């Protein structure tokens, strides 16, 4: 199960942010004005599990202007670096295919924070543990859709079976292109990408980095076999170096 976020119909109402906070009882994440369009949330984080991005392009003087709005969320990667590097097993894959932190196990080592290629998961400093979107694990277990999708008034956030969502999303891209929106494209819908496909993918109207998303994310653990090989060789080299220092010459 997962999300398809169709940003072409996002109106920037932030109902998703509010619904997520209320349902999941996520603490306050700062009350400040960023001066960055209507985005005073800034980014996803330990206490921000939905984040609506606002991009203003062009100038209102010549009416050559557009506003991009997009509700970002944890991608629930198929090959999830956060889960793979977690040393305690606190991060696990649920029966719905989503990635969730067990708050009673997490010891706040922070490894997942550095491993996430999207900058999603973070440690809540006053609490010491890592937090992120659970895709409303509790609601899913009761057969309900996640709070953000439920609250979204335009169906920009859609919840369902990923295969079905992908098919729907491709149809939507065709539709938009036929209507002249040449820049419409899907982001994260390909199971062969660097993270094995996103459990939460998007329809975007510009390059991913414009929305603060990495254009070609790769799970760091894809390179782990090579990293372990280098490490084993280096450990061997260390032993060899010590042995060399001990042989020959005076005592």
């Amino acid at each position: 199960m997962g999300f398809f976020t169709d940003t072409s119909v996002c109106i920037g109402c932030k109902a998703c942010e509010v619904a997520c906070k209320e349902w999941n009882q996520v603490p306050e994440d700062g009350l400040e004005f960023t001066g960055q369009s209507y985005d005073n949330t800034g980014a996803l984080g330990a206490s921000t599990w939905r984040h609506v991005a606002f991009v203003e392009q062009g100038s209102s003087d010549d009416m050559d202007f557009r506003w991009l709005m997009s509700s970002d969320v944890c991608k629930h990667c198929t090959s999830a670096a956060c889960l793979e590097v977690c040393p305690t097993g606190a991060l696990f894959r649920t029966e719905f295919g989503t990635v969730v932190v067990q708050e009673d196990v997490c010891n706040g080592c922070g490894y997942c924070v550095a491993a996430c290629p999207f900058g999603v998961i973070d440690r809540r400093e006053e609490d010491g543990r890592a937090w992120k979107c659970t895709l409303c694990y509790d609601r899913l277990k009761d057969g309900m859709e996640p709070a953000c999708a439920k609250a979204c008034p335009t169906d920009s956030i859609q919840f369902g079976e990923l295969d079905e969502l992908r098919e729907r999303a491709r149809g939507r891209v065709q539709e938009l292109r036929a209507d002249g929106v040449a820049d419409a494209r899907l982001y994260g819908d390909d199971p062969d990408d660097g993270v094995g496909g996103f459990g939460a993918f998007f329809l975007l109207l510009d390059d991913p980095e414009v929305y603060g998303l990495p254009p070609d994310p790769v799970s760091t653990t894809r390179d782990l076999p090579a990293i372990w090989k280098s490490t084993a060789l280096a450990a061997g080299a260390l032993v060899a170096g010590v042995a060399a220092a001990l042989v020959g010459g005076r005592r």
Partner: protein
Amino acid sequence: MSVLEVRAYPGPSGSDGAGPEIRTYHGRPVLKQPVWRPEIPWYFFVGGMAGAAAPLAVGAGVSGRRALARRAWILALAGVGISPVLLISDLGRPERFHNMLRVFKVTSPMSVGSWALAGFGTATGLAVGNELLGLPGGAAAKPVAAALGPVVSTYTAALIADTAVPVWHEARTELPFLFAATSAASAGAALTLVTPDAEAVPARRLAVAGAAGALGLLQAMERRLGPLGEPYREGDAGRFGRAAKALMGAGALGLAAFGRRSRAAAAAGASAVLAGAALERWSVFRAGFQSAADPKYVVGPQRARVEARGAGVGGAQVGPAGGAGRVNGGD
């Protein structure tokens, strides 16, 4: 054409048709900053030194250098004693440190390292008990400590390489060797300081070889990384790195040239190598933060990969390649 040119806020009117400049969301970072605190680079230094000291202790014992062996075991025990204190203090929930040994995961270098450190600490404790107090168990524990020590010295490189942090992940080939060399330099230098001249030769050699190796690896790493290695040269990372190179270089030269003749020169050289090795850990640590903070190091290489494939992300077709924000007809 540089893949690292940033344009924070693109718009159609600002589109100058120039090369593949990097576009960002309000100039914000894509990645989170690592949450690790100063305990971690100090652990890299202390744990790495302990790990390299153990095989030296075993070798010194086998070759009859009793004084060197005893000091190397004590150094290893001191290092492996301080390490968990540093690591636990860095946790968000220190009282749950034992969850580190709740599972064993080969996909998590931190899990592998926790088990290696636990095993290394136990074996080193037994080895020291045998060496100093004549307690039993030394024969079995010493080889185990010597085998696990180098794992402890190098897994930390695997740990930071296995992250999304650009300068750590991209340096994954060299970092384990750099950490091995720096660990050897630290252990050799520390033991040069405390070992009587008659048995200090292997320690001095290890310090010189480790420092020389580290300098060579840094050179190779920075050359291979090219513009992506920029964070290693800038800010705190750059300052620490330059000081580390100067100290390790001068210290190793001093040790090699005068270490045999003058006790004072040996002590000065060893101190310089030790300080340089610590600063090198700090340089690598800070560089990671700097590269995670700047979206150009994250987006640049990824955008270049997408362009090279000549297709959009995830196989979906994109609009104009690298096109700056274009306005769609009013819909």
